[in-house]
């Protein structure tokens, strides 16, 4: 079976109904959104189904949209079917005040470090993760640096006050 966007969409809506939204194919890559509560069910379905077989989690990352109230943090899963060499993208959104998302570590071992990285930079709390602590930044860091309310620049400097350096 050819894993065309139409086929993938029909299989997902057949299984999950209206929960699958925002279906699109930007730059030829099938993309859809599901509620964050069923992220594991969808991943498991995509993993187990003999036709779909998306068994490789290529990438897991977050995006911060401060203007989207109630769904500020997007979590993006990139999945790969190695047999047919098809990649798809699954998005979930969460409230920044309660960024709890179920961990995918039971399904994909590669999710372990990727979820730690996403926690490190965006503060998404992966419920059930075996070792959710910072992975790239120093452990003393007390904020999540890629959230947009925080400036990029190191705030300990006092010699660069030019507005070009973000400290105007």
């Amino acid at each position: 079976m050819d894993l065309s966007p139409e086929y993938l969409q029909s299989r997902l809506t057949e299984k999950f109904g209206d929960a699958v939204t925002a279906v699109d194919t930007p730059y030829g890559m099938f993309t859809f959104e599901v509620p964050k509560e069923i992220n594991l069910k969808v991943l498991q379905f995509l993993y187990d189904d003999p036709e779909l077989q998306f068994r490789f989690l290529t990438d897991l990352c977050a995006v911060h949209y401060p203007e989207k109230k109630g769904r500020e943090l997007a979590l993006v899963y990139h999945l790969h079917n190695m047999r047919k060499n098809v990649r798809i993208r699954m998005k979930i959104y969460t409230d920044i005040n309660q960024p709890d998302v179920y961990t995918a570590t039971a399904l994909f071992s590669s999710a372990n470090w990727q979820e730690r990285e996403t926690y490190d930079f965006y503060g998404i709390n992966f419920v059930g993760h075996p070792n959710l602590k910072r992975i790239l930044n120093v452990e003393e860091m007390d904020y999540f640096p890629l959230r947009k309310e925080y400036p990029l620049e190191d705030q300990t400097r006092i010699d660069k006050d030019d507005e070009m350096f973000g400290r105007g």
Partner: protein
Amino acid sequence: MGRLNPMTMARPVQFNVKNEGGKKVDISQFPGGYQGEGFFAGKMSELVGWGRSNSLWPLPFATSCCGIEFMATMASHYDLARFGSERVGFSPRQCDLLMVMGTIAKKMGPVLKQVYLQMAEPRWVIAVGACASSGGIFDTYSVLQGIDQIIPVDVYVPGCPPRPEAIIDGVMKVQDLVGQESLRRRNSEQYKALMESYGIE
């Protein structure tokens, strides 16, 4: 194969074995003193400084492109060995001169500090390049804004990256410091206060 003709090569290579043409070759100056038949009397600090400054053992702590320039500095063309720094050590306990070359992330800060602590006194530090000196272009939350936030630095070499000549110039500046250093400097109140300001015993 005949002998290479220097005139036909793009960059003439000169052999200085016989010093044809009588080019001036600088060698380190022996510190002055009184000497005669069977004795020499001079200042101990000058003799020690002379010895130390011409046998510095560098410890390269290279993390990025400045480290590549350092490789060129150590290689035959620029040849840091001419200045007595032949022996690059990779154990901090053997080395006198810590050369920090490249971006130091905040997460690497404790590692760098530990390397510094493992070196025996007297020890000197060069910050090579913009990143080691000030964070450079990486004005960001994850990068240490200059290694002098965690360890004392003797000489800063500017550049992004600096050319090997600049690194050699920095090493020569350290040689000047080493050669003129008082033997009691490391026991001085000022030096202890400097160490304490970095939280180093």
